[in-house]
């Protein structure tokens, strides 16, 4: 039996609305289906659950960066009104160590989320649980923690920091880069630094934990329900199935909500100890130390080239900070090694331990700072040899992956340069720095490219066709604003053949079919594939019933296929009945049809599946097989720099991006713009400012840690230059979420150089660097 599916993958050039796809179909510009619930306040976020007997926990953090807790005087806090429990390392229940996100077993058998040994300022040392939030806050202020302080290594520039630990796995080398550099006619060498940056999601981290016997339910904003559920299960030594994570909406994560964190362990321990559900929400300042932001980085990029600007050698050295007892590697050579063709290349990276919380994932970890280095350096080379910055990028265009030595699955970067330059009017640029101005405003035009690998994994979904003809999709994947609810509704609607209005997508509950991490821009590709498979098999069943069930009005037709469209079933030639799905199900006496679909390899074991959904160990390498798979983009940015004040304002952005096929261009554009806006913040505003005497970030709130406001953001034009890439995903998409931030900061720094003649190699580009 064959089933006809109106797939648009091969129909047009882009496979989306620009070829005429309907809003409801895959590739259509359907508005966010969760929009109305969020705008009206009907959407209930994790910690907004109203539970009987809820108690409130408040964290107490270390005020020193290095040393030991000598004593915690809990007397006053314990006696304060409403206090149920004061948790310290001595009183909290003991937990088991949990494996990391690769599934690597823990170093230590036990785990205590409250610290005795202090390795950074802002570390959780105690918690107070009370009947009300206010009581807990007041009592927490009464805890007296005394310390034996030892000298801290505050950051990468600390004299005590040293060179750090070489990370051999990051080394990438071919040819003889140092020798080729030494003999190159043109040589540039520069150091580029990025500071600590923070995800700063609107919704702070927090959770409600409730125990029923040895079953734990956690309502928590999560980018990865199954991964977090595994960690909770391991901590509390209960079966994975006993943990339920619920996370229907997430108020922004940007990488920071993928893992179960120590505050979660504290809340779940408190709930267990008290036999009551416990809510714990971090304060805004705590979100700066309760988990890691983007690690501060240092890179040196040396390029040897001919006078024609053709690169002969790149030598790259990178360093990122990590914590005293955790390991975070921010892969700084990731863009450096693939963006340009070079016969000789060397990249190495060290990691330096400082007294900080272990850094974490933040939108395009690795690629983002990496691009700041190489995309600034190539601009410096362009001025050195006197070649247009766009032209030099084309002269060094990598026709294949220079590192993996494989063909690109698709690389529409040349198209991106062409489309962006055209819309931006790049040809009108005058090359000299300080050559364009408007009164006191120096105008600069900069270009930079960005890229992000296509990370792939496997997903699972259930599709049900219900008695009323509507369709239900279930998956434990999540929607943190990127549009999962919407694109999965589109996928199911198109595949089954019903209007998108008739599809209800249920996400954010670990009881649903499983999904891996929502990170690395992989979810859309993974989950549209899984829903497509499940929906296809549900449709198969539906059509199968219609054809073969004796009670079906189609039975007499003896057809070997039927067409389902717009919620109705008919024969392809239209020579039989034409009835709704609901009527068919009624006629055959079924109240629903259900199909599970997954994209796991056929012979996968239960263990494989568990590993795939609860760790990242089974991610498929982007260079697997014959191809190297990446998304690509080119940013063209205009800045205006006030010559007296040094203030930089971005006045125009045109970005052309290749994310393959877009499942929903409206949502993809909005994610791209979000990435570009975040990139503007990174370039001009964002920086954790350290009091070096205390090893403490002092601008730990949203009045002082600046992210862009609407007034900082000009009109942003984004152009899709992608084409369906079936090597990257079932339906032809590549990654969307992280791509667009990559390359924004160097494009702005390059524009600032063009405007002012000053090369700023330390982010952010604040006014005192330019006056």
């Amino acid at each position, binding site marked *: 039996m064959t089933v006809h599916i109106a797939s648009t993958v091969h129909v047009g050039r882009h496979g989306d609305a620009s070829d005429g796809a309907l809003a409801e179909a895959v590739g259509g510009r359907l508005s966010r289906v969760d929009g109305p619930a969020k705008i009206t306040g009907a959407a209930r976020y994790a910690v907004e659950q109203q539970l009987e007997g809820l108690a409130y926990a408040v964290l107490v953090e270390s005020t020193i960066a290095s040393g030991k807790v000598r004593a915690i005087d809990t007397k006053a806090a314990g006696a304060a009104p409403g206090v149920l429990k004061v948790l310290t390392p001595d009183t909290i229940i003991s937990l088991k160590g949990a494996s990391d996100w690769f599934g690597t077993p823990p170093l230590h058998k036990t785990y205590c989320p409250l610290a005795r040994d202090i390795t950074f300022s802002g570390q959780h040392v105690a918690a107070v649980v009370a009947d009300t939030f206010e009581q807990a806050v007041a009592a927490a202020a009464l805890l007296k923690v005394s310390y034996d302080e030892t000298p801290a290594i505050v950051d990468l520039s600390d004299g005590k920091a040293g060179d750090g630990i070489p990370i051999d796995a990051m080394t990438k080398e071919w040819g003889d880069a140092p020798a080729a550099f030494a003999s190159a006619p043109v040589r540039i060498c520069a150091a580029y630094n990025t500071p600590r940056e923070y995800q700063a999601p609107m919704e702070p981290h927090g959770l409600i934990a409730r125990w029923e016997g040895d079953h734990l339910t956690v309502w928590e904003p999560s980018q990865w329900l199954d991964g977090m559920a595994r960690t909770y299960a391991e901590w509390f030594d209960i079966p994975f199935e006993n943990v339920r994570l619920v996370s229907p909406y997430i108020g922004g994560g940007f990488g920071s909500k993928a893992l179960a964190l120590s505050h979660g362990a504290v809340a779940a321990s408190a709930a267990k100890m008290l036999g009551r559900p416990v809510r714990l929400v971090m304060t805004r300042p705590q979100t700066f130390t309760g988990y890691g932001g983007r690690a501060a980085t240092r890179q040196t990029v040396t390029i040897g080239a001919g006078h024609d600007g053709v690169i002969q050698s790149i030598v790259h050295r990178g360093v990122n900070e990590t914590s005293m007892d955790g390991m975070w590697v921010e892969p700084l050579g990731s863009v450096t090694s693939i963006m340009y063709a070079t016969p000789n290349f060397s990249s190495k990276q060290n990691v330096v331990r400082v007294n900080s919380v272990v850094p974490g994932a933040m939108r395009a970890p690795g690629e983002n700072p990496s691009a700041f280095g190489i995309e600034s350096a190539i601009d410096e080379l362009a001025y050195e040899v006197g070649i247009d910055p766009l032209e030099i990028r084309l002269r060094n265009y990598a026709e294949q992956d220079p590192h993996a030595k494989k063909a690109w699955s698709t690389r529409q970067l040349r198209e991106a340069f062409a489309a962006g330059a055209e819309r931006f009017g790049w040809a009108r640029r005058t090359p000299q720095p300080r050559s364009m101005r408007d009164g*006191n405003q120096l105008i600069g035009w900069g270009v930079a490219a960005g890229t992000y690998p296509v990370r792939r994994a496997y997903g699972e979904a259930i599709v049900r066709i219900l008695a009323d003809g509507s369709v239900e999709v279930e998956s434990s994947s999540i929607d943190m604003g990127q549009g999962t609810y919407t694109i999965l509704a589109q996928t199911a609607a198109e595949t089954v053949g019903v209007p998108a209005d008739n599809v209800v997508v249920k996400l954010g509950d670990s009881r649903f079919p499983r999904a891996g991490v929502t990170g690395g821009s992989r979810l859309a590709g993974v989950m549209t594939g899984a829903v497509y498979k499940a929906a296809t098999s549900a449709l198969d069943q539906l059509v199968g019933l219609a054809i073969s069930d004796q009670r079906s009005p189609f039975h007499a037709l003896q057809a070997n296929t039927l067409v389902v469209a717009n919620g109705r079933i008919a024969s392809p030639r239209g020579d039989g009945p034409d009835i709704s799905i609901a009527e068919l199900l009624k006629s055959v006496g079924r109240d629903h049809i259900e199909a599970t679909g997954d994209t796991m390899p056929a012979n996968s074991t239960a263990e494989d599946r568990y590993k795939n959904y609860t760790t990242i160990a089974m991610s498929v390498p982007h260079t697997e097989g014959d191809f190297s798979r990446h998304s690509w983009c080119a940013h063209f940015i205009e800045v205006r720099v006030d010559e*007296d*004040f040094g203030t930089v304002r971005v006045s125009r952005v045109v970005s052309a991006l290749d994310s393959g096929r877009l499942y929903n261009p409206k949502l993809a554009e909005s994610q791209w713009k979000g990435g570009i806006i975040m990139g503007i913040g990174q370039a001009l505003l964002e920086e954790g400012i350290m009091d070096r005497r205390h090893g403490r970030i002092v601008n730990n709130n949203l009045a002082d840690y600046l992210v862009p406001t609407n007034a900082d953001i000009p009109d942003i034009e984004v152009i899709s230059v992608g084409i369906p890439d079936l090597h990257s995903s079932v339906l032809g998409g590549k990654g969307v979420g992280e791509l667009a931030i990559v390359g924004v900061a160097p494009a702005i720094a390059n524009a600032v150089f063009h405007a002012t003649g000053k090369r700023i190699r330390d982010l952010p580009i604040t006014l005192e660097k330019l006056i």
Partner: protein
Amino acid sequence: MRDFSYFRASSLDAARQAAALPGTMLLAGGTTLIDLAKCGVAEPDTLVDITHLKGLDRIDVNERGATIGALAKMGHIADHADIKSRFPAISEALWQAASAQIRNMATIGGNLMQRTRCPYFRGPANFSACNKREPGSGCSAIGGVTRGHAVLGTSEACIAMYPGDLATALVAFDATVHLGERKLLVDDFFLLPGSTPDREHAIEPGEMITSIEIPSSAAAHRSTYLKIRDRQSYEFAAASAAVGIEFEADGRTIRDLRVALGGVATKPWRARAVEEALKGKVLEPETVRAASRLAVEGAVDHGANHYKIELAPRVVARAILKLGETA
């Protein structure tokens, strides 16, 4: 839990009487006070809510000047047609301050009384030394993160910057603060830190700001407020200038000039030296730039805030020249 009592004042006298008691604080829009309570800086025993007092939110503008009630909202004043036309710098200072939401809540009484953004002042849990919070405890800022701290009017005890925009415009135009019957020039209302940085205003227990009066002047009529910052909106000033100018009949010679600086000093900072240097002079870019340097005479930096000494005179000069262009 830290209990406090809440009292809704029914009359001005009742409010003032209550406010005279130790541990009592007036509550207006709450945008500073609640924030400081959350940081653990303000720990009032009693809050006296004055927002229901009648008649204190009036904005009256006539030939002699403007009288603005203490409970008038920042947003209303910024949008007031007569304030915009006769005191443009006042309106501009207000709409460039804070965010739309805050301006809709915040009153100008509370606005004048806003406290410094010094992170050490705002972080008692982590930084015990702060002379402003705890007299005699020392100053955590000196030797620490000082990018936002003052370069003018500092003392060894405190280098905290006064962050308000409105008051900067008020000192430029000789506005007075009315504390019931008592009146003070805004310039005298704000105190230098000296050895008592905990005392910021010449206001006594039991006193309350009832209104602000801004006398009309030709300089106030031709005025502007220029605020420079890294972020285009919703950020305190890196440096700002309130400037008003009156020309002689030739339209080029400066008869009267008012200059005040924000974002760089421990209190709203009137730059009289700049005013004196330019009065009677013809407005020329070079003259203006040279005179503007006098704005930072005596400035002392603490490292990271050095840029303010460069920046502030440029802001002053730009503001003066901009007003000249419209002559």
